[in-house]
């Protein structure tokens, strides 16, 4: 690993979009701290494939996340780029999903990342530079059937991004939001299981509503995130929400 590269921390990087972001940032010369909920085989595999630094910890556990950030900064140096990506999601009607399970989506996606951002911001402000990229979701923008808790967590992150950008921008820290549409990740298998449909049918159902004619790829989302994390991209897009979604449009209010 290049010891001179800037330090990036990516949460939820054991699979899907998070893993693709790690691969991309590592290729771009960042020293990447790779967070996943537990230190299992998947995390070790991503570490081995990218040469990154393992940083396991449950985002919903404020103390564990504090210790994780402290260790990353002690070993690698101050975090310059944070990609807040980890998420939990269950799809079920609002009145049917058990209440505590419904709230776990808020605990990880919103509250966990709020506390994580609080942890890394002071170092960024001290350095006078930093890039925070929040991974939200198209569903947090337009809302989605059977995804009330997930969409709530993501619209909360979008609002957090707006205001943090205004507050931290003058201090050299940009905060941007990416709201991917439907992406080909292992989460789709969960969606298919929840819907009781084969995976291929799930792909076709989603693709039918997208002008580009297909669902997205994780590396396409990683490209957007790498752009926003870069010096030029971060200057140009502070506080905005980018929508890599193949042209899928409903009400965008």
């Amino acid at each position, binding site marked *: 690993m290049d010891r001179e590269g800037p330090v990036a921390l990516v949460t939820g990087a054991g699979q899907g979009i998070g893993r693709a972001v790690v691969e991309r940032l590592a290729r771009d010369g960042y020293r990447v701290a790779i967070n996943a909920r537990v230190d299992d085989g998947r995390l070790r595999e991503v570490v081995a494939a990218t040469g990154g630094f393992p940083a396991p910890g449950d985002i919903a556990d*404020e103390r564990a996340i504090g210790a994780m950030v402290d260790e990353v900064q002690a070993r690698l140096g101050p975090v310059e780029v944070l990609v807040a990506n980890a998420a939990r999601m269950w799809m079920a*009607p*609002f*009145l049917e999903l058990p*209440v505590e399970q*419904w*709230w776990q989506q*808020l605990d990880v996606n*919103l*509250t966990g990342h*709020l*506390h994580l*951002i*609080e942890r890394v*911001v*002071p170092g960024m402000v001290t350095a006078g530079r930093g890039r925070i990229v929040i991974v939200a979701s198209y*569903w*947090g*923008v*337009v*809302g*989605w*059937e*059977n*995804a*009330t*808790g*997930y*969409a*709530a*967590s*993501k*619209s*909360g*992150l*979008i*609002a*957090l991004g*707006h*205001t*943090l950008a*205004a*507050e*931290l921008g003058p201090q050299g820290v940009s905060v941007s939001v990416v709201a991917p549409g439907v992406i080909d990740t292992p989460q789709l298998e969960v969606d298919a299981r929840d819907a009781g449909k084969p995976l291929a049918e799930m792909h076709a159902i989603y693709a039918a509503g997208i002008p580009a004619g297909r669902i997205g790829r994780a590396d396409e989302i990683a490209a957007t995130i790498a752009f926003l994390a870069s010096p030029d991209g971060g200057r140009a897009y502070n*506080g905005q929400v980018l929508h890599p979604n193949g042209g899928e449009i409903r*009400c965008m*209010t």
Partner: protein
Amino acid sequence: MSEGGTGARPVALVIGAAGMVGPAIARRLAAAGYSVAPLTADAADGGSIADAVHGVAAEIGPIEVLVTGLGEAAPAEFTGLDGARWTQLLNSHLRAVTNACRAVLPGMVAAHRGMVVTLVPRAALPGGAPSRPYEAAAGGTIIGFTKSLAVEMAPQGIRVNCVVAPSTGTGDAVADTVAFLAQEGDFYVGQVFTPVEGEGDKHGS
């Protein structure tokens, strides 16, 4: 609803008696012919709100309109809030809204009829000043929740929308919007209304 009919007046439940907005909505809906139920329960307490809702339905009648109240304001700058305080803030926003919906929706589903309006603090939209990140994050959750719930509930005859409460003013602009939605808003599903009142808020960022 029937205008000036002789039957029982439809019941509206307006949560959030504190501040200007809740009472303004209650007055406006009462003037429009609704029987507005007072709610004293803490909506962030699921058991308490469920009991209160069942009491209203039993004593006054089935709830046709639910308006959820605004959560607590939080002027703190970022990094200025401890974890327990954040949880309390999120509870006053999203937990109160979801608890109220969990309590009221089963009756609306059974009746295949009803309307829900969630109120969202202005801080959750871009362009608010000063920036209030914690209030934005807590209040912003209500937007995604409402839009998603709207898609689930529309086929069941229940309309769900959001109204953003301006950061200053009398609450009349919000009340007018809620009354419009109740009386003539049949074709709105999962929308966010942002009435402007006073000098503080501008659209866009």
